[in-house]
């Protein structure tokens, strides 16, 4: 655990050193702020009710695009510059390495969501807000982010080219984000339900509405673990016979 934290902290620091973190924070707060408060059609004042739905709706899409941009370099860059050999010949296992990378972006997302707490406080002060729904909304957003980070880490481990990693993460992400839901609508019965179960939007919406269901938690944790184990498996592959 200590090793994981050391790796995560180093990575988080390099996000801030390279300005990437600041750009991400400004863009995220800018986007969500604009659509939550100023956009008009669908913003807080337009709705005329004290709820965070407008914010979570925007965060759902912004994070979908931002997270691959943050995760794309995690493993790809290390592989490209050879530093992966340096780290993995220190007392660090492949799994610790992958978890460290995952947590670094997760912490950055936590920071950016913490900076949106003033939205919550402001809305709560102008009307009666459903506190439960607001908090579960945050939890849902964190879970969704974690799922996309894990997919991003997996995509990043597949290639030493960051652009490829970015596009791959978006490609895998769009299935969970949109396509599974759309495909499911064309099927009825069990098949439709099964495909719909893979769609992140359904699970996200049910959590942001204020209901934390074990089914949803199982879904998010499955995606997270699957992505990270996949990334580890890709790293371990160097021991088989391929040329890494």
């Amino acid at each position, binding site marked *: 655990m200590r090793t994981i934290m*050391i790796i995560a902290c180093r990575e988080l620091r390099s996000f801030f050193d390279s300005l990437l973190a600041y750009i991400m924070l400004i863009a995220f707060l800018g986007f969500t702020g604009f659509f939550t408060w100023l956009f008009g059609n669908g913003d807080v004042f337009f709705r005329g009710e004290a709820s965070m739905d407008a914010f979570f709706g925007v965060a759902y899409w912004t994070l979908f695009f931002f997270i691959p941009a943050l995760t794309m370099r995690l493993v790809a860059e290390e592989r490209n510059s050879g*530093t992966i050999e340096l780290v993995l*010949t220190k*007392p660090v296992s492949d799994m610790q390495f992958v978890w460290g990378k995952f947590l670094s972006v997760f912490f950055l997302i936590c920071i950016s969501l913490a900076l949106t707490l003033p939205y919550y406080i402001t809305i709560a002060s102008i009307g009666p807000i459903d506190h439960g729904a607001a908090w579960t909304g945050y939890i849902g957003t964190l879970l969704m982010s974690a799922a996309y980070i894990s997919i991003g880490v997996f995509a990043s481990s597949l290639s030493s080219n960051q652009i490829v990693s970015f596009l791959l993460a978006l490609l895998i992400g769009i299935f969970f984000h949109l396509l599974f839901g759309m495909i499911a609508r064309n099927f009825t019965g069990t098949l439709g339900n099964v495909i719909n179960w893979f769609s992140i939007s359904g699970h996200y919406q049910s959590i942001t509405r204020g209901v934390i269901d074990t089914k949803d938690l199982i879904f998010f944790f499955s995606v997270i673990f699957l992505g990270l184990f996949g990334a580890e498996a890709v790293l371990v592959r160097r021991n088989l016979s391929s040329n890494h």
Partner: protein
Amino acid sequence: MDIVVEHITKRYGPQKAVDDVSFAVRTGEILGFLGPNGAGKSTTMKAITCYLAPNEGNIMVGGISIYEDPQAIKNSIGYLPESNPLYTDMPVINYLQFIARIHGIEKNQVNKRIAAMVEVCGLEGEKHKKIGELSKGFRQRVGLAQALIHDPEVLVLDEPTTGLDPNQIVEIRELIRKIGKEKTVLLSSHILAEVEATCDRILIINKGKIVADGTASDLRKRAEGKEILKTGIHGGEEKAVQDALRDLKNVEMVELLARGENLFEVHSKVGQSSAKAIFDLCVDRGWYLTQLTPTETRLEDIFRELTAN
């Protein structure tokens, strides 16, 4: 801590990068790993440092197998990878802190260790610069500093002196020799003079197989067999002298080194010496010797002989 490599084989696709290699390095020994590019040096080192698992065979470091407890082995090894990869966006100090912490050095010891490394590796003036801004020589020093920071029992250095200027090379060699007195050191190079100057034992590897193993003088003896004498004979016609030398029983070949100076290179047959015969010849003919010098076989020649296709 000893390194024992037992019959390791590593394949990249159909090609064998390392083919049934076995050797051992004892504590207090500096082993030089020599070979042409692509001979399997780096692959073997990657296997020892637990980065790549070999397809076959076993490696023991300090009695622990790489399959048993790779984390413990990694913690006792200081490794400088081939191209010296570093986090170029980090300042030297922060980078060393990161490495120290990942090795589990206690918090109150971290700064002490970093200060020691900065001094040993001569990084005092550069310690607050970003690694990306450093010249190649200083980067190499940072690479060495990170390999030494946890005071490892075993040091694995893959071409440690590439990119350094002659002064730095001498410094680094002295450093390695100093460290090598108590620790186990494995270093690779394709500069022969370097290996000869630093190492107690030399291992030559070619196409994934070990082709020679021994001290520099062992290797020389092995390759010698043939005695080569630089011979100067005056008092006679150049042509006549050369012919007379050629007719000697033990002589295989006579080469004229410089026209008009009566200087020859006399190659004796394997395992035989022609010094006495040459002397006797001179006495016989009334010539006189101006020079009779045995020529040492150079390590380069041995290397070329062993690794030529």
